[in-house]
């Protein structure tokens, strides 16, 4: 979000075009809701910048829910690198005991795209409410509807020698228990993407109702094995089981932490890390991180401003339409300076004022040659962090911080878009207001 608000900078002709239209005074005066919100968000986003972990504890007062948010990319500590290809799920002890019997033989699987219960209806189906089932005499011996269903499904499963049922929804507890008795493992809440992968690799056809199952819906070639036992004293026993197939595209990463609240944050970090890697491989090039790119941008812009200044002086003025251009470029430079300064401030290396001094110093040094300054980079990185010493990668390679090129460019572009929209807006129109209520407010006009 910080990028959205602060990095309003591209050496693009367009920026200039838009800013040209506004005079300085108007920009300052204008503070409609959009701009105010952006400023507020920008202020919050400041503290997210940089590699230092600064968790945000967000609490929803109405529901009492709370969660932890942070942005950083040190996930490696928490990833169990022993994870393997396949899908790792947590099972109860009873089900897991079946797995012990099943290992080292490939088993058959069926996929249910819905709930595994008698009551379940597919999406879009309206259960009729005004149908009553009437019996003329009480028959205590016959089975209930649910029992008939259970019997039918279980028979189908047993007839086809199915050992594993993957369900995208929930499975009824009673039926799961019955399945355990017949050596069938039922796994609930499997994500649809995982179901699709199993469908592709095992040849199983996903069905919505278990009663639809037939021989041709059954997939083969699934290996199931116990991966690790997580049962400890006082906790509900749960055992991690790996379900794998040949040619599967699935990889399970197990994230563990001894603080429960950190788990979600950890997952977010993992994904941001994974996406970074993905984009880096896609782009096949990287930008220098740790503020280096921004520093170069500032340098470039400053040279541009100077060059233009000399040119216009040489011509003797008369270059209409570009009066505000230098001013706008200068604003951009400031935006980037502030970005780097915040980065340094958040690293805890220096105060904001000294950060500005350092940046200016480096900009002067940059004149002429464009070399990566390792010292500068190290200042931006966390120097005083204890973890740093323990992590060999970072200690050995100071200044090796990179950013994704396309992600960064896209962020700049998006920030610009937002700035365009907000700055070009001059009126806020609120509909549905009773005119009598707003008479007292002087800054609102009623149409």
């Amino acid at each position: 979000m910080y990028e959205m608000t602060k990095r309003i900078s591209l050496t693009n002709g367009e920026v200039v075009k838009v800013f040209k239209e506004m005079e300085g005074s108007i920009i300052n005066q204008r503070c409609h809701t959009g701009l105010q919100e952006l400023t507020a968000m920008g202020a919050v986003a400041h503290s997210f910048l940089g590699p230092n972990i600064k968790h945000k504890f967000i609490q929803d007062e109405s529901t009492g829910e709370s969660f932890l948010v942070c942005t950083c990319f040190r996930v490696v500590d928490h990833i169990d690198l022993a994870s393997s290809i396949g899908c790792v799920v947590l099972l109860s002890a009873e089900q897991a005991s079946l797995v012990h019997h099943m290992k080292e033989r490939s088993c058959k699987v069926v996929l249910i795209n819905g709930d595994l219960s008698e009551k379940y209806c597919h999406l879009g189906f309206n259960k009729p409410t005004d149908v009553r089932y009437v019996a003329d005499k009480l028959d205590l011996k016959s089975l209930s509807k649910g029992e008939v269903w259970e019997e039918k499904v279980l028979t189908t499963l047993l007839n086809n020698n199915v050992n594993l049922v993957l369900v995208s929804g929930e499975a009824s507890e009673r039926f799961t228990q019955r399945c355990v008795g017949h050596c069938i493992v039922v796994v609930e809440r499997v994500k649809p993407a995982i179901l699709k992968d199993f469908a592709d690799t095992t040849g199983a056809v996903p069905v919505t109702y278990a009663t639809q199952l037939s021989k041709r819906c059954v997939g083969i070639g699934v290996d199931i094995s116990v991966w690790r036992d997580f049962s400890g004293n006082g906790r509900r026993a749960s055992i991690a089981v790996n379900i794998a197939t040949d040619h599967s595209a699935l990889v399970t990463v197990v994230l563990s932490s001894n603080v429960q609240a950190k788990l979600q944050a950890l997952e977010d970090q993992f994904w941001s890390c994974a996406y970074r890697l993905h984009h880096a491989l896609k782009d096949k090039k990287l930008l220098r991180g740790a503020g280096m790119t921004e520093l170069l941008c500032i340098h470039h812009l400053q040279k541009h401003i100077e060059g233009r200044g000399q040119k216009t002086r040489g011509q003797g003025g008369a270059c209409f339409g570009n009066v505000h251009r230098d001013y706008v470029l200068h604003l951009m430079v400031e935006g980037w300076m502030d970005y780097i300064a915040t980065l340094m401030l958040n690293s805890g290396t220096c105060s904001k004022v000294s950060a500005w001094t350092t940046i200016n110093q480096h900009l002067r040094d940059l004149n002429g040659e464009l070399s990566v300054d390792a010292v500068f980079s190290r200042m931006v990185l966390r120097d005083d962090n204890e973890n740093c010493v323990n992590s060999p990668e970072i200690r050995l390679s100071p200044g090796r911080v990179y950013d994704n090129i396309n992600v960064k460019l896209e962020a700049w572009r998006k920030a610009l878009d937002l700035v365009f929209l907000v700055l070009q807006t001059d009126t806020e129109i609120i509909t549905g207001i009773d005119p009598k209520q707003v008479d007292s407010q002087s800054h609102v006009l009623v149409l």
Partner: protein
Amino acid sequence: MFRLSKKIPSVCTDDPLSKNEVSRKMTLMRQILISSFGPNGRLKQVHNNVGGPVLTTSTSSSLLQALRSTDPLLKLINASILNHLSRFSDCGLYVGILCLSLISNVQRSGLRPSVAISLNQYLLGLCTSYLKQEDCGCKVNIDFGSSQNLVTLARSVISSKPACVLTEKEQRHISTLVVHAFLLTVPFGDTSETVRLGRIVRVCIEGQSVLDSAVFQGLLVDAPDMLLPSTGVERTRLGSGPFRLALFTVSLSGDLSVLGDGSLEVHRGSPDPEDIVLDQLLRLGEQVVRDQVDVFMCQRVIHPVLQHFLRRNGVLVVERLGVALIEPIVQMTGAQAVAVYQTPVPPEAYGQVKEVCVRKVGLKEMLHLMPCGEPALCTMVISHRNETMLNELKSACQKVEYVLRLTLRDPAALLGGGCTETHLAAYCRSKGSNGAAQTASSMAVSQSEFLLGLNAFCLSLEAVSLALEHDGGASFIDLTHAHCWSVPSDWVPQWGEGVDAPDTCRCGLVERSTQPAQGVKREWTLLNTRYPPFIPASWVQDSSSVPLVKDTNPLVKDTSHLVKDTNPLVEDTSHLVKDTNPLVKDTYPLVKDTNPLVKDTNPLVKDTTHLVMDTTHLVKDTIPLVKDTTPLVKDTNPLVKDTTLLVKDTNPLVKDTSHLVKETTPLVEDNTYKPRVLDSFTAKLNALQVAVETANLILDIRYIIQDVN
């Protein structure tokens, strides 16, 4: 118990326009409209008072929906603008600005309403008749053989929406795409009286670059990832060849139909009603499979058991299409949408698609259905980086499509950028002041009243031109062509020499460098000052300005000839049966016509060879025909068939012109001149009438009687 409330007497407002509150509201409305007008207009943030969605826009249609006023006069104006928009979709802000300016100018002039109304009516008549004249100085005829004017027209509409946030390149891309899509919707080779235009289906994708927008022939249908065929069997079935398609609008989810009042009692032992419905659905499935249907589509949900059954039999199943897609599918495939599942599907209800493939659009995978024949239907994928800009772009594209359709009815465009208004104002001033005394006496008004009214009218027209300027710049008018020129605020003009004037006028037609006439210097004056009346010269298309006005692309020109040529060809075929002798003559020019085509156009060569081949057949056929005259009538029949083939064959050729649109744009780029700005003729003409008539109506209102109960 009855409760009687006392009736409050109605409130009567005398001479509403003179009330302070009313004029304040009108001024506010005018300021809002003026500030959002044109490519540099400011945006408006619209939201409701309880924190609903925020809309950022400068488009008249969305803006006026939000600007609900409590004042009856403003309500009237609002309604007439919205009505105009519903018919012409363009020039909404124009109507509002002109109407409100006219009202305020008439009030300021102190004319009696009745006099002002008759004068406005007279001047409106003067303007419309001038605009309809052939030699009107601000009208540009649109030649459908060239795509340049169409693209300019499209671009003028799109560039006037600043909330789209488009770069030059993106503007060009989008306007070319819209014109391309529009051309695809125009059926070719149809000689019947009524021509039905096709339609453009829009698919919006957020988060992609604008340059990823594209136009596809046929339809793109959203299909969830799980539903897309993944197994090998189904993929191979999606090869080529016409596929039979069934389309249902009724829900096939297996619901019981509504029971009405009361409830249904099911006795133990009797079959479950849900099973009975499912059985019915499966019977339908069996019939469909028996009838060799390849694609099965439903507007709503399909029961998973039925889906499973159909897929197992190799049928491609698509559910939850939504109501918006049903009509395009019907139009494209010729299928009839079936609304019952209890009875067997009649065989004529099946439609056909030529090709089905999975196409990746943005991050989504979509099913691409290709039409069998050539129904004029295409899908336009519009992508933009964020939702606000995407919505604005989508509505802009819709407007362009409508404006382009209007040009089919009236193939003309008006100069944009405010030049039409200054031109019209200058025309009215010169016409009016010439015979002022005579005209005034014929209308039974005094000459001074006439001149006051004239001034008010012309000032209002010029106010629209002035409204395009938002950044404190000045607007000027030149005293030969009466075009509008704008100058940035920080620029000191030196009009004496005319050296520092901008390169072209706002619409880009008149250039500073060209001399209006031999030995005459171009002169300018500020737009809202008085200037001596003169008859504005219409822009003469002299040889020096060829690249700007005329089409630079010989390729497009040729194809336009071709389009024209096919028409006499079709006409000739009707004569064909009657006498065979001129037939041979007729076919020769045909072959001749195609020859220059082969030379000129590389991409067209393939198609033209077909044409030449066919014509040789034609020539061959005619030779025996001439020899023996007895089986004359019989032989001519295949001949006629052949010529119809010929006409059909020219269609792909004509279609290729739509692809040519892409190739013409680089040519346009080569122009060192600024692109012109064009406005829709029909929309603007109507906007002018609506604005003046609404203003007259408002001026005419003496009392407002409001029932406040």
